[in-house]
């Protein structure tokens, strides 16, 4: 059974061909428009001195002109799109900063900010992704939110001031869940790519605007008769370009609308699934309906990014055909069939939620039994996961949680997690820490150790999820020092154990894009043989982690691999596999397409589960592999099967 996550990614990919067609149509329309403009422009002969009328000698069919105009348009549109795509390769934070977002620090104690951060954290742990950075749009009064990025690793969430102030905790959770579903469904990647590509057709309008402004200015500055006509031509040209620009925007919105509307319904539905609380997200939509500012976004960057938002960001006017979001009433009706059409009037801030302790779920105290296996449920969070996340967060000692939220102390949390159980190795590690550690950190690590030892394995990865935002705020040189120390601590006992490898892998996957730029998978798999090698490395490494005999391992690898490639996969010998070679293999595997990744993950799960038990370290390993492939893996619930 293909899981929803991969289905969505594939569907997004298929939509791409339709989008390319529409985009091509837009460019063709622009070329035509520009050609007409150029033909008129080059046919302009001046003013008839007797009648004071403009004289034109237009050649309507001029192949050379058409080619020139076509080339120029392609260069401008192509160049602009490439430029924007390159700029956006910085990831979600580029979008957020462009919209005027202010990064919230994870150790903020301001009540409004704390509320948002807590809700996002709970959702992140439930989904198995690191807490995304949260950007606050201070100046936006409308109730809205967005998620942007290429993958869960560089995803960011944005919340407007209106959203934070007007919504209750439940409603906020609904909105955040909606955004998380975009992250989990892989919608974000297409969205951000759309932004880049559509920029090309928007740029012509921008040039027109610039031309208009500068020619008006020049016309005012010099008002001699002989200049009048040329200025007028420039003004006319500017206006015409702007008109063409609207054409570009028209197509742009058409393209965006054809993609985003269906997905918005889907995201609403997923949000309900996550929170078991249709009232939350429906409530938010009703408040938008009743709120004067609605979900309007004032920022000049709004047109470009309108499809990233939760609610309709721009007033549609006659653009209801090209609205990026389905009509509000329709969305509410689907979530709340008994709704009679009354929107919620809001004026001041929302009443403080009395159920803050209940954390927005119908807490009846008992954990919901969870039937689906982890791999089948990937990309679909449930209330069980959310309940689990809230409980987990409550179990963490306050000092440890506080440390994880603070950039300075988060490093100590990671070092403490890496401390060996064996006293001798630990002494060695503490020695390294004393020698090379940053000022004040070794002491803090020692202080945190006793509390952290009491935590079970289930808390380890969530703790990293909590600490990642703080770690992202390290400066580049601080990060390099941190990375070096993590490496030294892991190597201290000459033996990389599974958890150490998992930790390093997750840190690398999620921090590297922050400091080294979001990199697309560089090396691609070039041949069937290479793919087989990669798979053998991955599956053999996993098989050797378990407790089976050599022959049983071979069997599990072969069986798991049969779904992936035709040739039978061989179990690689002990000395040829190791966690080091796993790094390289995963790097290559990251370039596979969605359905291939799904099968790889399923195969991994099968091999891990082959020995009849899934140790905590193996579950963590599975999560790290999922992370490396860009596939969020929610926490394995107690009693849940892996495959």
């Amino acid at each position, binding site marked *: 059974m293909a899981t929803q996550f991969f289905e969505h990614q594939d569907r997004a990919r298929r939509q791409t061909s339709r989008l390319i067609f529409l985009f091509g149509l837009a460019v063709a329309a622009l070329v035509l428009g520009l050609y007409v403009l150029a033909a008129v422009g*080059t046919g302009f002969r001046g003013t008839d001195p007797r009648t004071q009328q403009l004289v034109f000698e237009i050649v309507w069919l*001029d192949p*050379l*002109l058409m080619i*020139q105009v076509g080339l*120029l348009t392609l*260069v*401008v549109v192509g*160049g*602009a799109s490439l*430029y924007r795509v*390159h*700029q956006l390769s*910085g990831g979600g934070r*580029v979008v957020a*900063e462009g919209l005027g977002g202010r*990064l919230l*620090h994870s*150790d903020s104690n301001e009540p409004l900010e704390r509320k948002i951060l807590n809700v996002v954290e709970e959702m992140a742990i439930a989904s198995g992704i690191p807490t995304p950075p949260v950007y606050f749009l201070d100046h936006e009064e409308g109730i809205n939110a967005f998620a942007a990025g290429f993958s869960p690793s560089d995803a960011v969430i944005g919340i407007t001031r209106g959203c934070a102030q007007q919504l209750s905790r439940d409603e906020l959770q609904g909105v955040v869940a909606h955004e998380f579903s975009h992250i989990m469904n892989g919608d974000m990647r297409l969205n951000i790519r759309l932004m880049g590509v559509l920029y090309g057709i928007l740029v012509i309008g921008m*040039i027109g605007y610039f031309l208009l402004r500068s020619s008006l200015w020049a016309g005012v500055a010099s008002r001699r008769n002989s200049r009048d006509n040329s200025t007028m031509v420039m003004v006319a040209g500017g206006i015409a370009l702007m008109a063409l620009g609207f054409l570009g925007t028209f197509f742009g919105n058409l393209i965006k609308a054809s993609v985003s509307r269906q997905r918005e319904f889907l995201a609403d539905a997923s949000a309900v699934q996550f929170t078991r609380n249709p009232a939350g997200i429906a409530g938010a939509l009703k408040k938008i309906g009743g709120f004067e500012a609605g979900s309007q976004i004032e920022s000049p960057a709004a047109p470009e990014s309108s499809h990233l938002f939760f609610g309709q960001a721009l007033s549609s006017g006659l653009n209801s055909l090209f609205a990026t979001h389905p009509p509000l009433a329709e969305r509410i009706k689907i979530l709340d069939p008994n709704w009679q059409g009354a929107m919620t009037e809001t004026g001041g801030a929302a009443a403080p939620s009395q159920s803050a302790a209940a954390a927005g779920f119908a807490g009846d105290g008992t954990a919901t039994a969870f039937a689906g296996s982890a791999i089948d449920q990937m990309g679909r969070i449930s209330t069980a996961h959310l309940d689990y996340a809230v409980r987990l967060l409550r179990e963490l000692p306050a000092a440890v949680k506080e440390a994880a939220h*603070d*950039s*300075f*102390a988060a490093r100590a949390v990671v070092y403490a997690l890496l401390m060996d159980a064996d006293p001798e190795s630990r002494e060695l590690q503490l020695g390294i820490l004393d020698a090379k550690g*940053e*000022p*004040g*950190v070794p002491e*803090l690590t020692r202080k945190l150790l006793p509390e952290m030892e009491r935590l079970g394995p289930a808390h380890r990865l969530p703790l990293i999820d909590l600490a990642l935002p703080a770690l992202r*705020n*390290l*400066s*580049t*040189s*601080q990060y390099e020092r941190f990375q070096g120390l993590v490496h030294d601590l892991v190597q201290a006992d000459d033996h990389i154990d599974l958890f150490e490898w998992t930790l390093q892998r997750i840190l690398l996957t999620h921090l590297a894009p922050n400091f080294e730029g979001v990199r697309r998978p560089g090396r691609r798999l070039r041949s069937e043989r290479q793919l087989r090698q990669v798979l053998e490395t991955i599956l053999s490494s996993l098989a050797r982690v378990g407790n089976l005999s050599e022959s049983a391992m071979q069997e599990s690898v072969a069986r798991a691999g049969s779904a992936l490639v035709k040739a039978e996969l061989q179990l690689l010998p002990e000395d040829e596999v190791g966690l080091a070679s796993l790094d390289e293999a995963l790097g290559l595997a990251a370039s596979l397409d969605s359905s291939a990744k799904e099968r790889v993950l399923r195969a991994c799960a099968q091999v891990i589960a082959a020995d009849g038990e899934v140790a905590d370290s193996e579950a963590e390993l599975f999560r790290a592999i999922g992370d490396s492939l860009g596939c969020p893996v929610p926490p394995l619930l107690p009693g849940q099967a892996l495959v």
Partner: protein
Amino acid sequence: MSGAALFLAILAALAIVVAMYAVGIFNRLVALKNRYENAFAQIEVQLKRRHDLIPNLVETVKGYMSHERETLEAVIHARNQAVGGLEKAAGKPGDPAAMKALGGAEGALTGAMGRLLALSESYPDLRASENMQQLTEELTSTENKVSFARQAFNDAVTLYNTAKQSFPAILFAGMFSHSQDAAFLEFDSQAIAEAPKVSF
């Protein structure tokens, strides 16, 4: 179409490309500026924490060191100066005058606190008190965090200045209100060098 028109078209295309490149540089500078402003916000948080701890410290110490009035008053004075310095620097991270003023004020505070703590060494009752131990613990932790945040800020400032000064950014930077290099935040260590005055 004439050769001249074609030439103009190419020129126009080139101009657009150059313009886009310039915009790209501008955006990068803006992003780096955002980063160091963000880092400064972190310093503010830690410095406020430091400032908030001091009245508590003075109260605790007063009971035991009642005749060390000069030293105590010096700490309170330095603390108030630092609070003022921080307020003034709040909207201007990287501004040379603001950074210098803040750095000086915080440096003086560090010096005054250092003298106070050195003095407290000669009061074993004070040292043994649980309150004092907890406070020194918090102070040390806060000092570490301040130092850490300051380092992160200076790193971010370095990145910004380097990007701004490199070629070809340096050609455009002046036009875009990125003409001035951002200033580092240094805590003036001269104040610390002064030997603590001990009076009996």
